[in-house]
Structures are given as C-alpha cells and as structure tokens.
C-alpha cells in the first residue's frame, strides 16, 4: 500500500509537532521549578519580603517560560498549517520541530538560575531588590538568545521555498540546519544562566560591587553565546547554500554530519565557559580588587574551553565546503 506525498507531509508535521512540544517543555519546567524552590527557601528565611520575592519569582518564571512558548507556537503552526505537498516538506517540518524543541531546553533551564538567585538575594538584601530585578532581567534575556536563534531557524525553514532545489542532498542540508541550531542552543542557554546566577548572588552579598559584577557577567555570558552563534552560522550556510544534485549517499550524509558535528560540539564548550564565568563573577563579588586578574583568567580559561567548539566548526565547514 503506497501513500501519497501529502500523507507523508502530514505525518511529518504531526510527529514534528509532538517532538517540538515534548522536548520544548523539559527546560522551562526545570528552570521554573528551581526558581520556585529558591523562592520558597528565601521566603522561609525572610517572610517580611514575601511580596517582593513572590513578584520576582513570577517575573523570572515568565522569562523562563518564553522558550517553551516559542516551542508551543511552532508546534501549533505545525499542527494547523496547510503545507504544500512537496517531498522536501517532510525533512523541513521534522527539522523545524527538532530545532525549536531542542533549542528550548537550555534557555528554559538557564533563565531559571538568575531568577532563583534574585529571589534568594531579596531575602538577604531587601534594599537591593530593584537592582537585583534589573540584573536578573538582563541575565535571563541573554539566556534566551539561543532559543531565539532556534526560533528564527525554524521559521526560515518553514517559510523558505525549497521546491526548486534538488531533493538529494537538500533533504540532508535541511535536517542538518535544524539539528545544528537545536543542539547548539542547549549549552549556551545553560552556561549563560550559570554566569547570571553568580552575578545575582554576588550583588546580594556585596551591593557595592554591582557595576563590576554586571559588566563581567555580560562579558562572561557573551563568551558562552559564541558556540550558539557558530551553530547558527552553520545552519544558515546549510539552508542558503545551493548544493548540486546527486544520486550518491555520501554528499547528503556529509551535510547531515556537519549539522550534527557543530550542534553537539557546541554543547560542552558553552557549559564549561559557564562554569568559568560563574566562578569569576563570584570571586569579583567577594573582592572587587581582583577584578583585573579574575577577568583575565576567566577569558584565558574560556578561550581554551572554546577550542573544541572551534574544532567542531572547522570539521563542519570542511564537511560542507571541502568534501
């Protein structure tokens, strides 16, 4: 019994919808749970501040939720859009779903960290609650960027007309693009969150260090985002480069491998850079005098951790352009 292409496109759309929302729900729920746990702890320590702490818990959770809402939007679009019945729509829909589903994990967990630290900080240092909220919002916003990259890639995939491209190897380029940005977003979201958590904790401990702590936090977070940007770059190349038609299996497999390589390879360095940034920010908050030494050491350590991400980028580019 043979099914027509329209049937397979629907199969892909509905499976992708499930994948998107299933993966997309993981991160936000963990992050928000962590925030709520810290808020309870903080109210237990300082019940008089419960109003402020409760408010900042809700604001922080709302930001962590946004990654899951992106996944919900993509899932809804996959379920209720009438897609053209072209064979390339099958990889397009699966790829868009995987991209946004995986891409929402890191940002959801990561954005929960600074919100939790802000709640703890308000119990400890009520006078700083305004500044803590600002710092939490900046930190969480940076954690959301990789989820936004994944959203952009999903939208581009769904609304680009691939019908004039050769089926092979374009199917693999499409899948690779989604996988690259999806996996690549996990590490950067988590790493950025760790740095932001340390800065909120630090401001609450030593309110006078607020300017240096926020500055170094932004620097550390920026470095953690680099691997997500490499993954986005590889996705764009895979989506917009035109590849010659082929009957062989090897060329499409090289493009799929490029996406896998850059996506998975971006996870580790970003998490490692997050560890380094967290400790550096923490040290600066304890003793601002060491800011020069700590910033330098943080950047050197992060640069070394970045190296494997760059190897992955090199291998991905070789797979796309040289092979």
């Amino acid at each position, binding site marked *: 019994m043979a099914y027509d292409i329209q049937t397979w496109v629907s199969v892909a759309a509905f499976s992708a919808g499930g994948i998107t929302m299933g993966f997309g729900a993981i991160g936000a729920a963990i992050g928000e749970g962590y925030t709520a746990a810290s808020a309870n702890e903080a109210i237990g320590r300082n019940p008089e501040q419960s109003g402020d702490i409760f408010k900042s818990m809700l604001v922080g959770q709302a930001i962590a939720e946004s990654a899951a809402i992106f996944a919900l939007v993509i899932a809804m679009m996959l379920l209720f859009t009438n897609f053209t019945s072209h064979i390339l729509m099958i990889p397009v829909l699966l790829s868009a779903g995987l991209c946004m589903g995986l891409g929402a994990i890191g940002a959801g967990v990561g954005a929960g960290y600074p919100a939790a630290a802000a709640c703890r900080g308000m119990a400890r240092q009520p006078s700083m609650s305004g500044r803590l909220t600002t710092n939490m919002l900046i930190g969480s916003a940076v954690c959301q960027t990789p989820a936004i990259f994944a959203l952009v890639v999903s939208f581009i995939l769904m609304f680009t007309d691939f019908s004039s491209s050769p089926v092979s190897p374009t199917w693999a380029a499409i899948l690779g693009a989604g996988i690259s940005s999806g996996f690549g977003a996990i*590490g950067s979201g988590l790493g950025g969150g760790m740095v932001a958590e340390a800065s909120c904790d630090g401001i609450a401990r030593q309110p006078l260090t607020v300017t240096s702590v926020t500055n170094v936090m932004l620097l550390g977070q920026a470095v953690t985002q680099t691997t997500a940007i490499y993954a986005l770059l590889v996705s764009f190349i895979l989506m917009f480069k035109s590849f010659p038609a082929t*009957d*062989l*299996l*090897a060329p*499409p*497999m*090289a493009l*799929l*491998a*490029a*996406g*896998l*390589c*850059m*996506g*998975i*390879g*971006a*996870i*580790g*360095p*970003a*998490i*490692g*850079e*997050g*560890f*380094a940034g*967290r*400790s*550096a920010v*923490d*040290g*600066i908050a*304890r*003793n601002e*005098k*060491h800011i020069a*030494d*700590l910033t330098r*050491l*943080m950047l*050197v*350590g*992060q640069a*070394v*951790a*970045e*190296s*494997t*991400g760059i*190897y*992955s980028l*090199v*291998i991905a580019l*070789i*797979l796309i352009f*040289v*092979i």
Partner: protein
Amino acid sequence: MAIEGADLIRASAYLGAGLAMGLGAIGPGVGEGMAAAKACEAIGKNPKEAGLLTRTMLVGQAVSESTGIYSLVIALLLLFVV
C-alpha cells in the same frame, strides 16, 4: 537507486567524522571550564599566586584538551585518509 558499497562507506565515514568531533567536543569543553572555574576561585582567595595558578590551569586544560584533539585527528582521518 541502488547504493553502491564505496558510496555507503564514504557516507558512513562522513557521518562518523561528524559524530566523532561533535561528541568528542563535549567532554573537554566542560572539563576545561571546571579547571578555569577552580583557578578563578583560587585567585580570588590568594591573588598573589596568580602566575602559578594560571600556569597550572593551562597545563591541566592542555591535558584535558587531548581527547578533543584525538577526536579532531580521528575526524580528519575519516574525512581525508580512510
């Protein structure tokens, strides 16, 4: 379309190269980050030893980098030699 043996081998070599470098990049990245984190903590406690700590951190990171370089070598071998 029938897939020939040589084509299948090339395809698996490419896929293997991508997986080798992608998965192989996770461990060194996380490990080197932990080393840098502890070095930052130690400098925060004892800034006079910054030079010694930086050197120790870099040596430790270089050792944990080795598995990343093995992955890179294997990936390049799969792409260009095998």
